[in-house]
């Protein structure tokens, strides 16, 4: 047993590869992951319990049942609803095939919503990740008090989005908010987000970025700390400036994390911001902040047009699936455990 402990800890630093069926954990002394012929050490087989045939089913049962009842069943119902037009109380239903989808793509409001969502998502993602990267780089330099700074930067992540929306609403209120008051003389911008669509977009974008900063910074920090300092010091010795070192060494090594965060932020801005829009602008003046997911809610629950709402849900589901598959495929390959 003593041997195993020592061996385990010394092996921890070696790159590990798992074969395709994830049964063997192979520590390889050569990089990239060797094929089975070049395997150096086979450390373990995946442990499998063979005694109880029925135990796995019992263990899985609760989760599977809940998943089917609350995930699959509503998803299938949504899919089915999307093919029908129905009165709110359900007394009349007509099968219309893809007419809901056709009407959706033809309607200028939906097209407008697509563009709004695109702008919103792009802003939140790109700006959010860029700002978080800068903050994480700075944070990585500071050694003393790092935990204090980190906590101070992380805490907005714990605030629920609708609450931060209300917080920012107060801050950016055209009459008694401190931000317009401060910028009144300096910038010529109409902060009245009840009438000015751009002001409303600014409000929700800033709130979404602010709330998610903690999440991004945390992941960036973890990624930065996985980069050995020796690399950067070597670059500095070779005469590179800090900026060049960051650009050519840190950033490429950080790219898995960056990619992961980009995808997560897109998912966040597409789906998690529903609460924010509902609490603050409800689609905004005109429909300036009506993102896809809010429109699906509005059409379904407020206007009681269940068929169209279900069609929008289906489109969003497809989008979410694509993003998840994309991320999973990439992550499973690049990030090693």
């Amino acid at each position, binding site marked *: 047993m003593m041997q195993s402990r020592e061996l385990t800890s010394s092996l921890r630093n070696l790159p590990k590869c798992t074969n395709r069926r994830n049964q063997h954990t192979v520590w390889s002394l050569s990089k990239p992951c060797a094929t089975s012929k070049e395997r150096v050490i086979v450390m373990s087989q995946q442990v499998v319990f063979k005694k109880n045939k029925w135990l796995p089913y019992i263990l899985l049962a609760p989760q599977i049942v809940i998943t089917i009842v*609350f995930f699959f069943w509503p998803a299938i119902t949504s899919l089915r609803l999307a093919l029908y037009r129905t009165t709110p109380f359900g007394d009349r239903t007509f099968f219309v095939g893809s007419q809901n989808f056709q009407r959706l793509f033809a309607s200028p409001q939906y097209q407008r919503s697509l563009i709004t969502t695109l702008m919103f998502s792009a802003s939140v993602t790109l700006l959010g990740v860029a700002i978080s990267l800068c903050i994480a780089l700075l944070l990585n330099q500071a050694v003393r008090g790092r935990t204090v700074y980190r906590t101070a930067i992380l805490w907005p992540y714990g605030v629920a989005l609708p609450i931060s929306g209300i917080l920012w609403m107060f801050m950016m209120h055209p009459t008694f908010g401190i931000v317009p008051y401060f910028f009144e003389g300096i910038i010529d911008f109409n902060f009245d987000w009840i009438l000015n669509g751009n002001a409303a977009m600014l409000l929700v974008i800033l709130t979404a970025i602010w709330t998610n900063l903690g999440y991004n910074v945390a992941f960036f920090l973890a990624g930065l700390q996985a980069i050995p300092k020796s690399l950067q010091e070597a670059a500095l010795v070779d005469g590179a400036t800090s900026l060049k070192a960051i650009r050519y060494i840190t950033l490429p090594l950080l790219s898995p994390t960056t990619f992961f965060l980009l995808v997560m932020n897109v998912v966040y801005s597409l789906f998690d911001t529903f609460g924010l829009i509902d609490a603050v602008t409800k689609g905004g003046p005109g429909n300036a902040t009506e993102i896809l997911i809010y429109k699906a809610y509005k059409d379904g629950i407020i206007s009681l047009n269940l068929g169209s709402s279900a069609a929008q849900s289906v489109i969003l589901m497809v989008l979410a699936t694509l993003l998840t598959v994309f991320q999973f495929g990439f992550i499973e390959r690049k990030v090693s455990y």
Partner: protein
Amino acid sequence: MSQKTAKQTNVLGGLQLNKVNWEKLYIHLLLITIVLIIGFPLIYAFAISTQSLQEVVGRPTLRISNNLLGNYREAWVRSDLGRLLFNSIFVALTSTIGKITMAILSAFAIVFFNFRFKSLAFWTIFITLMLPVPVRIVSTYQVISDLGWLNSYVGLTVPLMASATGTFFFRQFYRTIPGQTTETSWGRPHEVSVVCLTSQFMGQYCRLVCGLVHLRLESILVATHDYSH
């Protein structure tokens, strides 16, 4: 080249030391500014929460006024915050405990057993990552209404208990436990879960968990041995 190295790393006093200090100071200043900007909404919210209505709708200031107790008391009473807080804590606790329990159990089943529907179960669970809640909200509402769970704690907690991310994390954790051939044997599968349950409450990420149960790793190795091959 080596001269530069000497300058940057070996000089203890004089110009070099000052240069290092300036950089550090600069970084700390920047960080403090950033922290202030990020924390500004909270500071502002706190300041407003101590002002009276007239002050709030007047010219905006960061002044801390003296309506602190009055405002908080009114907020508590008007929105029945006690009840709301209780609801939030209750729902959060219940769904978290349920979520972790289920994740432990199902990840355990997926990793340590080979059974006929293993892949099907695996993908059933992970496909839920692709179905975010707001997308299926209308139909989920219908299902919960059909069950009669509207407006109840059950309706709020149970649907959230099947979390694919939880299962994902525990699966990763279980896979990092190497099997080992040794002689002694004790322990049963659910005791492994108990260990994981305890450690889960102490750490957040799998690696942390791994580190904390490192001491118990032997017992786990021993336990897992009992059922290998």
